[in-house]
């Protein structure tokens, strides 16, 4: 009687590693990638995209606003000083 051995079958992976194994290596669950939901990852990617873009636009907008406000204030102050200088000159003449 001939015995049949299936040599193509992979060696069984121990499902319950010993305490020594656990202290020296962490093994991934087989097929772990498949546990990720494609829909969830897609939504996360698009949410990140818009958060980064809106963040950049918001920071730029705030910077521009702050500079504009300061420029407008300074321009009006300078205009007043210039006008006062002009009137002093014309009064002196």
């Amino acid at each position, binding site marked *: 009687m001939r015995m049949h051995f299936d040599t193509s079958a992979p060696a069984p992976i121990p499902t319950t590693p010993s305490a020594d194994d656990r202290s020296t290596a962490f093994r*991934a669950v087989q*097929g*772990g*990638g*498949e546990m*990720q939901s*494609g*829909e969830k*990852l*897609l939504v*996360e*990617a*698009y949410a*990140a*995209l818009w958060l*980064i*873009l809106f963040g*950049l*636009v918001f920071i*730029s907008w705030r*910077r*521009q606003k702050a*500079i*504009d*406000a*300061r*420029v*407008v204030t*300074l*321009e009006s*102050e*300078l205009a007043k*000083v210039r006008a006062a200088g002009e009137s002093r000159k014309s009064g002196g003449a």
Partner: protein
Amino acid sequence: MAESAIVSKAAAPRGSFLQNDTLFYALLALTALGIVSTLQVVAFRAPTEASMGIVQKIFYFHVPAAYAMYLGAAACFLGSAGYLYNGRLGWDALARAGSEVAVAMGIIVMVTGPLWAAKAWGVYWTWDPRLTTSMLSVLLYVAYVVLRAFAGDGEAERKFAAALGVLGAANLPIIHYSVQKWGGNHPKVITSGGGGLQHPDMKLAFAMGMTSFTLLALLLLWSRVRIDLASSRLAELEQEALELGLGEE
């Protein structure tokens, strides 16, 4: 908006298109339209990819964001080289704008890529040549932005940053050719030797993504340059105010 127009006109060189608000807002409207249309095509028209499923739709913004990062980095290189050549502040403003666009787009690439990889490869990150060189490039531009933000705005700092901007660009061709030279896991679907997008609607969505991100990169560059021009105008006014003894606010 009106204030911003006044500032930009006052600060930009006479006759420069940078002071043209109509063009700026036209580009803003065109970019918004492009992005909304791309989203619509990606969501409702582009088919789901056969082996990866719906997560492959990240591709339509991931690759254009990488391309926009190249555009920002190229602007940074051009501005830095121009500044080192003739020392004009306009070139420095372009370099600064380019670095910020490169960082923003680079972060988008570095976030969306691993989310896609989590499904496609089963891991968020692997030290693949393209991933590693891309991360290196993003870190270089982050260093540039941090340098400009915290190291002052003297001529020496500007020159140092310009040198970084020129040398940082050396990594860009390495990113591009890393897949071909060193292999790795990163897909090469649309580069030479790749099989390409196998459906006309996939091609349409990709073309629209590339177009809208080109417009977006140009818009972000322009808006950042406008901020720099307004800052220059503010510095002039502050100097004038000091000379006239207008207090020291």
